[in-house]
């Protein structure tokens, strides 16, 4: 953490992805530094979602490269990204509503019981996973849920969001990506999620926050990556730019010289 220019934990270089004739990523650049909350803003269709899906392994770029700690990584599936320590909270939350909270939290990485029951009978440690799920949720202080075996669809919007964030925070060891985490929430619940983002950052995990909500982004982000027409238009900070300026860059009313270096990152 010393020195003038720390190594970015996650980078994208010259990333290209097109769907037929639609170019979603047009030689996009991206840098995320340790311990920061990086806001990512951009108009609809600017390619924000495609960019972060490249990081979560849900989309494979046509060309360009993704680097973690300076070394290239190649995510073919969401599992590859998870294995590298990148956890994503999708806008759709990616939960299974009919399944209970504990099952959702551990979906895809269930833990088996030790010994014969686990290895031969393939028996899951249901009690242990429920206990861990309870701990994760209470650690976030967001929820008042007692019954880990209740179906996610019986929860309110904020509680569902909490389950998805708890899952990411529980398993993400390097980077947490959040796609529109406050879009479906009321004022009170949004406030809790923003606090949660700060908590996660304070625990040392960098957070990528994709949002349309400028006040939320300016509230928690250390730096803001502005995406426009499939590429990075600028990187600003809440202290050097106003919301109006950010929106102007986002819509193309102000043009900024292409960013070649990590200007203004909070070191």
């Amino acid at each position, binding site marked *: 953490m010393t020195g003038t220019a720390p190594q970015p934990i996650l980078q994208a270089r010259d990333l290209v992805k097109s769907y037929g004739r639609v170019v979603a990523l047009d030689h996009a650049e991206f840098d995320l530094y340790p311990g920061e909350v990086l806001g990512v803003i951009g108009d609809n269709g600017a390619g924000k979602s495609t960019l972060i899906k490249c990081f*979560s392994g*849900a989309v494979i770029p046509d060309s360009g490269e993704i680097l973690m700690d300076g070394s290239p990584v190649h995510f073919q*599936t*969401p*599992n590859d990204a*998870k294995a590298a320590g990148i956890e*994503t909270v*999708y806008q*759709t*939350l*990616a*939960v*299974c*509503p*009919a*399944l209970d909270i504990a*099952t*959702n939290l551990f*979906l*895809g*990485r*269930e833990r*088996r019981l030790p010994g014969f029951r686990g290895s031969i*009978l*393939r*028996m*899951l440690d*249901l009690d242990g996973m429920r206990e861990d799920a309870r701990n994760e949720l209470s650690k976030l202080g*967001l*929820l*008042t*849920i*007692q*019954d880990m*075996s*209740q*179906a996610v*669809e*019986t*929860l*309110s*919007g*904020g*509680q569902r969001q909490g389950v998805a964030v708890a899952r990411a925070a529980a398993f993400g060891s390097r980077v947490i990506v959040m796609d529109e985490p406050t879009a479906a929430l009321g004022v009170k*619940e949004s406030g809790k999620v923003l606090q949660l983002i700060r908590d996660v950052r304070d625990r040392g995990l960098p957070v990528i926050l994709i949002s349309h909500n400028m006040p939320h982004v300016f509230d928690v982000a250390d730096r803001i990556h502005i995406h426009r027409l499939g590429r990075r238009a600028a990187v600003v900070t809440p202290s050097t730019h106003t919301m109006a300026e950010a929106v102007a860059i986002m819509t193309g009313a102000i043009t900024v010289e292409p960013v070649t270096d990590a200007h203004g990152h909070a070191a």
Partner: protein
Amino acid sequence: MEAAAAAVTGLNDDDERRALTPLERVQRTLHKYPALGPLIVLIVLAATFSLIAPDRFLKPFNLSLIISQVTVVGTLAIGQTIIILTAGVDLSVGAIAVFASIVMANVNVSWGVPGVLALILGFAFGTGCGLLNGWLITRFRMPPFIVTLGTLSIFFALDLYVSGSATVRGTDMDPILVLPGQVIEFLGTRFTLGSIGMLVAYGIMMYLLRFTAWGRHIFAVGDEPESARLSGVRTDRLLLSVYGAAGLLYALGAWFLLGRINAASPQALESANLETITAVVIGGTSLFGGRGGVLGTLFGAIIVGTAVNGLTIAGFDPLWQRFAIGVLVIVAVGMDQWIRRVGK
């Protein structure tokens, strides 16, 4: 009931929801325990027939007879259940089971292959047919309804070809092939080995669905395939394994069929597709996938068997059996629609 009450208390203060009405509590409870609805229907049905014909319905022999009568369809319905849980459906279940039974019988009788080996071959063919369905569905992204409608015709044609449209009698087969028909008398009941085998198969599948990752993933893929994929479930591989496992269970049903009708006939199980789907639906498993379970299907199969048996004993014309089953299916799907709206 305690757990349901805890679920209710868990939902509060964060968004200050109003208390649940009694009807909503019922809805939540049925949502959490999908086998509860069919169990209640079964109890009501059995109680009704016990009142109408106490001297004939409520006898150990008659009750074990119902179990024996639903053995084959009940076994096939396990496979149908896990497929429907993934939001699929299998129309080829009868054709696959008949195929497996014909392979078992003809390989043994016509080619002189030992019984055990013929049995294993039958199981291999059943599993292979299931895997073929699964492969077509996952590889070419075709709807299960269409794929299995196609393979229904294909497998049925192969049934006729392999059997030469002829029936093989059980007395000509190796005894192991008709072993599931063996009757065990116990305290006035008459169970077949096949019915006991069916109950064991239900027990194993209940364990797999509840206590293994494979089982949990079946529910996840049926509920929200994209969420399951993003969570790291290999959805295509899972679907393939489900259709393969269903094929294996159809072969088990085929073996029980040989014992039950003491023959291998290409004309058997003509209505098995609809009968298995009926049992699954009455058993409370949602056709939209992701909720339900095999215990409900067992109740569903026994409900059908009980309705048929009780109405016969009570002296109703057989047409009312079909009428009653139709009503049960409609009511079950209506209940499912209501239960699925929980929390919305």
